[in-house]
């Protein structure tokens, strides 16, 4: 009897390690947030290609996500959002995951920053010397530094307010506490419609001019101001990498995923690719964008 049980157990272990292509799919997003939602779409396409993806979300606990990433010995994917996530914040010692360029697998989306008026103030009002303005920015230091530069150059006083999400931002706009907002995904806000002044994107995004025209006197590269989400991978063989990429690309092209991107005004053209060369170029561009 003992032998039978042992043989059965060994068979189970052997089959599970030999045939099931286990894949750990990590995400630090909220359980019901967009990152986890996207992970699910990608995972379903990976499943169709014979993988067994196991999605693990740490619900905004980036330290736990980093621990799981560091300790993983199986093929692992992680969907993260640059500057929107502690995992990519170099100042966040417990969360920052140092990745290599070859671990960068797939560029999922990109969305530029937009500068909008939250009340009646115009760009000209902002530049009046010695004037004071309250501007909402995301929880990252680049925007803070940009506002400091603008403040110094034009001799104006800027009160930056870090606001985490639109849930908090909208009441602040409605109550008239903010003069301007500088962040991603705000052009469709009811209270900001037709009030956006410039964007950090080079092309004609939402029919808005590029911010460099407004800040031409300052030596600032606005192209780095974008929110980028991408998938990194580790313990993945070259052969598996190609299969995984194809599955993710299928998921990315699916109607459900494209609906999410369209709703949020994400730039699909910037991240999409048709062949190996284009893929390599895009990954290189992304690497330079996030680590320059």
């Amino acid at each position, binding site marked *: 009897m003992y032998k039978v049980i042992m043989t059965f157990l060994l068979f189970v272990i052997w089959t599970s390690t030999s045939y099931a292509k286990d894949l750990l799919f990590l995400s630090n997003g*909220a*359980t*019901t*947030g967009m990152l986890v939602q996207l992970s699910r779409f990608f995972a379903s396409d990976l499943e169709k290609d014979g993988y067994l993806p196991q999605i*693990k*979300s*740490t*619900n*905004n*606990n*980036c*330290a*736990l996500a*980093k*621990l*799981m990433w560091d300790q993983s010995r199986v093929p692992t994917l992680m969907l993260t959002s640059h500057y929107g996530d*502690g995992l990519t*914040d170099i*100042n*966040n010692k*417990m*969360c920052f995951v140092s990745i290599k360029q070859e671990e960068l697998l797939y560029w999922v989306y990109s969305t530029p920053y937009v500068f909008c008026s939250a009340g009646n103030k115009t760009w000209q009002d902002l530049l009046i010397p010695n004037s004071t303005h*309250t501007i909402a920015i995301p*929880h990252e230091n680049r925007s803070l530094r940009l506002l400091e530069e603008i403040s110094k150059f034009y001799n104006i006083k800027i*009160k*930056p*307010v*870090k*606001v*985490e999400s639109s*849930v*908090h931002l*909208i*009441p*602040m706009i*409605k*109550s*008239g*506490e903010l003069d301007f907002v500088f962040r991603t995904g705000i052009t469709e806000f*009811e209270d900001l419609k037709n009030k956006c002044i410039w964007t950090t994107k080079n092309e004609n995004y939402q029919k808005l001019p590029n911010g460099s025209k407004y800040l031409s006197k300052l030596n600032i590269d606005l192209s780095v101001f974008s929110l980028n989400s991408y998938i990194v991978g580790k313990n993945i063989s070259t052969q598996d990498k190609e299969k995984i990429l194809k599955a993710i690309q299928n998921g990315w092209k699916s109607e459900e995923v494209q609906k999410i991107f369209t709703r949020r005004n994400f730039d699909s053209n910037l991240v999409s690719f048709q062949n190996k060369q284009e893929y390599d170029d895009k990954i290189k561009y992304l690497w330079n964008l996030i680590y320059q």
Partner: protein
Amino acid sequence: MFEIVISTILGLIAGIMTGLIPGIGTTAFLLLSLPLLVDQSLLFCVTFYCVMSATSQYFGSITALCFGVPGETTSLPLLSIRSRLENENKINDSIYISAIGSLIASIFSIFLIINLIPLFSHWFFYLKSYVSLIFGLIGFVLCVLYSNNKILISFLFAAAGWFLGKIGYNSITQQAFMTFDVHYLYSGLPALPIIIGIYAVPNLLQSIFQILKMPNTFYNFNLRFNKNNLLFINIMPIMRGSIIGFFSGLIPFIGSGISSLLAYTIEKKINDKEYIKHVAAAESANNSANLSVLVPLLSLGVAIVTSEYVLLEILSNNSVSISWKFIEQQGYLIFVSIIFSNFIAFIFALRLINLISKLILKLRYMLPMFFIFSIFLSIFYYGLGNHQEYWYLILCVVSSVFGFLLRKFDLLPFTFAFLLQNQIDVILYRVSQIYF
């Protein structure tokens, strides 16, 4: 449409159970319903909560009047006059008057709410950060002053809640507080396992003790008396209770809890020995207050009672929030559900009272056990989604032990400070940035 029907039915069932099971309040039952609410839409969660909150009061008085065990804390005034009602052979009258009083008060409240919500929603002044800070601080002071503990003890509880709430990484200051490089502590202590442990588990354990004290016979209710006459005599106390309840419900953090006691005390002054009138006023007041607490929640997305904090926590986990646009578009569905469920609750409370009483007696030992099992299962499930299931379970067990040991104290100051620490911290930051 399907969603609203399901959430109304489930909210009604939850309201009936919350009212009937002694010791289980809206907060505890909302926490128990967590697996049901995770991943649900905003409309589903809000309707479920509103219906549960509105209907639970119909049934809290049943256990108080039939068994002498309060189903809800707001049924305590009934308990104090139950023996007198029994001596005067007026339990039947009391059950009827508390049900009809609850219905009238609910309709009265809904009418006022529908008129008040649009008014509230245009007061953008209320959304200013410093107003939130002032409300938060007033709430904090009220919690400390009006809890059932000595002021110093309440203050210490609030301080402990604040300290525990502060643990974690602060993305604004980019500094960690008391995380000791423990990965699980980095995102802070999760609110729900701790609040479930502090509130729900000790509540359930206490309900087991209360159920054990129940008599083995049940009160046989019948409706063979002149109901119209009874209603006519008591219409004024019902209206007084409804008005007192409505406005006391708007007082943050203490309103709904004191509404029935306040109406009962005032009615006692007006009609000293007319106990049925006391019942009418107290029961109308708690239904009215239970609906008026929804005004700030539905108009501004602001919580003023513990159960609403829990609801907002669940909504935030679901990445949704209550907005004026949502109320404008779907608010009527919620109000229709509340009105409908109030009528159903009224009919159930009168027609099924004998069946319910029998059922409670039969299942009385099983129900609390079932709920305790459900609590830990729901925490495990909730943690599983965040890959922190054992961590959540450990936290729930540890806080249950603390909750049980401290059951004699009012833990509202702790809960208030713990749940609001992050928000008040953020608001303080905003006020300092914008106004100074």
